[in-house]
């Protein structure tokens, strides 16, 4: 056989392979489209009932009757649509959809699947239990915070947040720690979950603020501020003054700005001192504005001329947020006979305040 013949046969084989690949793809696509169309056609009679239930327009219970009575094979096709609707609505329609899932045995099945060998199934089960906010599931989902699969741990934390069971707070905080080679939960996932659990997590926060792990202390401080947990203010003061981690001190300062009072002005002002890190100084200047106490005025005016322009701008913004007295002090600084950094920071803040509509007519011309 000549070289030319070999090449010809090789070309033919390659051509045939390509053609058959294209044919396989086309057949698969056709089959999928046809299957999808058939599934849509089968579900069409139930779509209207599902929308009626999800929109809360089923006062006479007709949709409920239809959906609760579907056969098992139809339910298998309908279930993804029900699950897809659940995270989109809240209130009574969400409760009704959850009840529909329960009536078809989905909640019990999900509880069983939490111990599946498949990580995907464990995650799906936790996700579903979070969606229906079944409080009885919290204790079952909790162990998944120690799951070997990182994604399962994430889904479990979010599910516990969605369920909103405060007794799970300590478990979420524990899962923040990196241990046994497992990376801890991302801080923001833990914080969101904790915030969803409501005011009853205050005791868990108090314990967390005293944790040896800085990641736990930091998240607790963040949550204390965002959730306005005023009861933990004494611990936040201790963290701001003594914590070994800059992040924790900054988070404590932010939280004190939200939950503290006049007694915190001195501590926050002290941490705007030039000996502190830039991050902490800026955070404390902002927190003084959040506190809104007139006792902060002198400190903030003193920062207007700081070499750290960002700090000066934040101090000026805090003065605006304190109100008329802060704005008056800014106007004094802006009108200084010798324009310098203070005047520039003051003018910038006054311009911004004017744009935001925070100034009265008299202040607008500063």
């Amino acid at each position, binding site marked *: 056989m000549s070289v030319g013949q070999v090449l010809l046969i090789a070309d033919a084989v390659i051509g045939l392979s390509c053609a058959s690949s294209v044919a396989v793809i086309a057949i698969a696509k056709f089959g999928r489209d046809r299957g999808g169309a058939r599934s849509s056609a089968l579900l069409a009679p139930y*779509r209207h009932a599902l*929308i*009626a239930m*999800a*929109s*809360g*327009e089923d006062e006479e219970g007709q949709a409920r009757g239809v959906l609760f009575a579907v056969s098992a094979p139809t339910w298998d096709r309908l279930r993804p*649509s029900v699950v*897809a*609707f659940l*995270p*989109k*609505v*809240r*209130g*009574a*329609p*969400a409760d009704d959809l959850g009840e529909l899932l329960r009536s078809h045995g989905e909640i019990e099945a999900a509880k069983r699947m939490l111990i599946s060998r498949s990580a995907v199934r464990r995650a799906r089960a936790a996700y579903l239990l979070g969606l229906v906010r079944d409080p009885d599931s919290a204790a079952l989902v909790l162990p998944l915070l120690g799951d070997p699969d990182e994604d399962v741990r994430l889904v479990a934390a979010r599910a516990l947040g969605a369920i909103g069971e405060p007794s799970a707070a300590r478990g979420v905080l524990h899962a923040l720690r990196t241990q046994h080679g497992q990376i801890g939960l991302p801080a923001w996932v833990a914080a969101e979950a904790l915030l969803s659990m409501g005011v009853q997590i205050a005791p868990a926060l108090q314990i967390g603020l005293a944790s040896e792990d800085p990641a736990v202390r930091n998240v607790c401080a963040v949550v204390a501020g965002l959730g306005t947990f005023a009861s933990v203010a004494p611990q936040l003061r201790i963290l701001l003054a003594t914590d070994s981690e800059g992040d924790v001190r900054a988070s404590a300062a932010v939280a004190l700005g939200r939950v503290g009072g006049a007694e915190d002005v001195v501590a926050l002002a002290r941490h705007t001192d030039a000996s502190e890190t830039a991050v902490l100084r800026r955070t404390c200047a902002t927190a003084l504005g959040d506190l809104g106490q007139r006792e902060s005025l002198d400190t903030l005016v003193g920062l207007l001329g700081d070499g750290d322009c960002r700090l000066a701008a934040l101090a000026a913004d805090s003065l605006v947020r304190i109100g008329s007295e802060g704005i008056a002090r800014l106007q004094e600084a802006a009108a200084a006979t010798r324009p310098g950094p203070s005047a520039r920071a003051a003018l910038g803040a006054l311009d911004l305040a004017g744009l935001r509509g925070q100034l009265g007519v008299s202040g607008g011309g500063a």
Partner: protein
Amino acid sequence: MTEPVKTRILVADDDRDILDLVVFKLTQAGYEVVGVADGSAALAAIEADPPRLAILDVMMPGLSGIDVLRKVRANEATKDLDVILLTARSRDSDVDAGFATGASDYVIKPFSPRELLHRVNALLARGNG
């Protein structure tokens, strides 16, 4: 006897479930509702025949709800249209940006269909008052 003219509302959302749900809810409440699945179609529908109120999803392919709102406010013929932004973006800065662009109201997903209807009713009542 002629039927009373229904108040017309435009709903734009690329999520088919939410679009169908909102259209159904408002239709049941007695409104005439037009549903579209993207921002360009929403803008075209508003400019062709301005409704009394528009409900816009923020994150849509092509023109976002914010883009549509900006163009609506810049157009003399539609600048006073009541617009509700319906979105999963729940941060304060997102809400501020929505109102700064000129939204009449801002509803965060997941949402209560009943609450959305109350807000629609309230906006339209304010416009009529």
